């Protein structure tokens, strides 16, 4: 296996999710209650509302090495 392919197969994206406390965050809790399994790569950040998500948060996440940002609300 070439090095490139090897890197590709083991590479895991780092995902930052901004979740509205009232819907998306509650939805993520519900996924937990129902034991719905999903990949471990995502880290949730609770915000009081999706309206609270300032574009600079998204930019900062990318600057700090996030591969993807999920805005959910």
């Amino acid at each position, binding site marked *: 296996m070439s090095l490139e392919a090897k890197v590709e197969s083991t590479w895991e994206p*780092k995902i*930052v999710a901004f979740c509205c406390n*009232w819907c998306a965050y509650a939805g993520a809790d519900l996924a937990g209650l129902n034991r719905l399994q999903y990949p471990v790569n995502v*880290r949730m*950040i609770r*915000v*009081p*509302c999706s*309206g*609270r*998500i*300032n*574009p*600079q*948060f998204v930019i*900062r*996440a990318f600057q*700090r*090495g*996030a591969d993807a940002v999920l805005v959910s609300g």
Partner: protein
Amino acid sequence: MVAAAQHPNIEILTYSEVEAVDGFVGNFQVTIRKKARLLDESKCTGCGLCEEKCPGRATSEFEEGLAKRKSIYKPFPQAVPNLPVLDKNSCRLFTKGKCGVCKKICPTGAIDYEQQDEIITENFGAIVMATGYDLFEWQEVYGEYGYGKYPDVITGLQFERMNNAAGFTGGKIIRPSDGKEPKTVVFIKCVGSRDEAKGKAYCSRTCCMYTAKHAHQVIEKIPDSQAIVFYMDIRTPGKAYEEFAQRSIEEGAVYVRGRVSRVYQHGDKLIVKGEDTLLGKPVEVEADLVVLATAMVPSRDAKAIAKVVGIGTDQDGFFQEAHPKLRPVETHTAGVYIAGACQGPKDIPDTVAQASAAAVKVCSLFSKTEMATDPMVADVNLAICSGCGMCVPVCPYKAIELVPKAERVNGKQIERLVAQVNSGLCQGCGACNAACRAGAINVKGYTDDQILAEVDAICL
């Protein structure tokens, strides 16, 4: 009903709808439209003379379309308040321009054709939603039961009206088509419920029990009668429920496990074709009357009123509780509670229990004269705020306004506009922050600095 009507602390507003809800827990401002009854309520004595003499006719909603009512009418004799209402759509005066009998005959001169809707604004500390249910409209989708074209295929609620001693038949069970007493009555359960293809996925919860009651009533009221129940499962999870259902079976109700594939008219009989899945054999019944146990669905305007009050609905349109197990009567909007079938299909014992639970929540809120506010609201840094006003229109709660601020600049007294947040109205959503170019507005407890610190740490 009488207990509610006579309670000194209860004011009854019928024929009224909620138009708008502003404010927040403890301080809601509610706008109510009191629809015109075309009647001066202070003069009407409820004598009923107008209804007696009214020549107009319309289909009675209260009798589920099985009987007629007058154009000026009380839905039923024991109505509370004891006042008639004039229905413009069927009134001869309003449709044909000629009549006026009720006004002429009214001994107190209470009829007022010119009356307009009245708008009332009142303050409340809490709101209880108890908007109930409607029945699934089976006629739209159940072709196998005749799309509603056979008069002797009726719903459970229509059956209730015939059974009710105060109803249009005086409690006699009849066939709507010819008024004859039916001998063979077929009940079909799960019409619109537990049927994702045609209706709803959920179980309507009350049908197994009321069908058992209906079967019992057929056997009790009609000599030599037969009650046949087609069912998928018999679900009786309640105190004394299973015993009740078993009693109907012991009295002679025949329970057939299986779905009905077709109902059609043959002479004056209805042929019901189905399958007994326990015997694995097809079944055919010559019935005189077919009663459908139709699913409970949210009240017809539930979605609209949810939007007005500001609460959520679930995938079926029922009001969403704050937590399915731990907060069943609260909503995500503080100060708004839910009770009864508006939250999901429910029988009377469960409804009463939930209503009392909602009442306790209201009482515990009212037991204090003041309440603590959430400090996690928007906060303006006045030194940075340029008074551009971008935050004002983005605020969904109308919590921000521009106010003048006096200050000294270079030894001169000046006045400039700055944003001011009403912390009572602010819900801390932070939409203003994203709109503020100067970065002057932050949400306390969720400041840019705090969230960015969390982002940095999580991305390490």
